[in-house]
């Protein structure tokens, strides 16, 4: 009957939405306009791992913005993806986290795609660059952000 036709049509539409392929594509083109803030590594709050992670993530086509800050133990990364890639957001998050964890086995890696964390990390990066943050203050700040990114309600 007509009714069944409509229902099955809706089901087909729904199932097509589920069938996105989840593999991330990486390309070697370097001429994409991702803005990376390289933070100097000379001050006490060394940002070596962050810079390294940014270089690594730059390869992926899906990513448009990368912000990262780290302490000795924690590495907090926020990425923004192209809008039509947001359908596979959960997959992207999982795969990138896995890769970064492999890259930095001795650190606790937190990867998020949250807009708020991107904004906060941007401010934090600028602050680190402008003034010499004490180690303790940075640790406190990152702890706060990680807690914020894990909030559910």
């Amino acid at each position: 009957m007509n009714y069944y036709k409509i229902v099955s049509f809706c089901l087909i539409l729904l199932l097509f939405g589920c069938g996105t392929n989840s593999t991330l594509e990486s390309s070697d083109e370097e001429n994409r306009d991702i803005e990376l803030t390289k933070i100097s590594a000379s001050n006490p709050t060394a940002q070596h791992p962050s810079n390294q992670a940014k270089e690594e993530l730059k390869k992926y086509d899906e990513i448009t913005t990368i912000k990262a800050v780290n302490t000795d133990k924690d590495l907090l990364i926020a990425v923004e993806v192209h809008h039509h890639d947001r359908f596979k957001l959960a997959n992207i998050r999982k795969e990138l986290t896995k890769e970064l964890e492999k890259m930095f086995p001795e650190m606790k890696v937190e990867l998020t795609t949250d807009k708020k964390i991107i904004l906060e990390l941007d401010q934090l990066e600028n602050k680190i660059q402008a003034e010499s943050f004490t180690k303790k203050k940075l640790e406190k700040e990152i702890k706060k952000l990680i807690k914020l990114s894990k909030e559910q309600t």
Partner: protein
Amino acid sequence: MADKKKKNLPPDAQEYQAFQKQREVKRPIFKNCIKAFLVGGFICFIGQIISTFYIHFFNFTEQTVGNPTVATLIFITMLLTGFGVYDRIGQFSGAGSAVPVTGFGNAVISSAIEHRTEGFVLGVGSNMLKLAGPVIVYGVFSAFVIALIKTILIKWGGL
């Protein structure tokens, strides 16, 4: 099902049905759909503006911004319903203004206003959720069914 019912009617009633079907003004379904799409989309657009505002100026993440956004939208709906503007919007756009959370707010608030004269307990209290109650009941029930399907798919289908 409607066809079956029609066949059981006496012949003159069937004749009348055919006659009135000819005379009936056709509903402009396509036009209504477009209107609902545009107005509903506009309401969601406002919601997105509000949630972006909360993310930028308050301590909310994308995960947590939903609650204050919904609260703000319902507050705006309350004002619009009270001033009689939302009725006009509803008349114009139909489902476009009823399906988003503002329609739910409107259903609660308008019935609260309507039954105000019957007193606070038996009037407002008992009639407030008369239309919104089913929404909650079937929302919870369908969420349960979907969760059941998802669990089965994950456990047995290895999705």
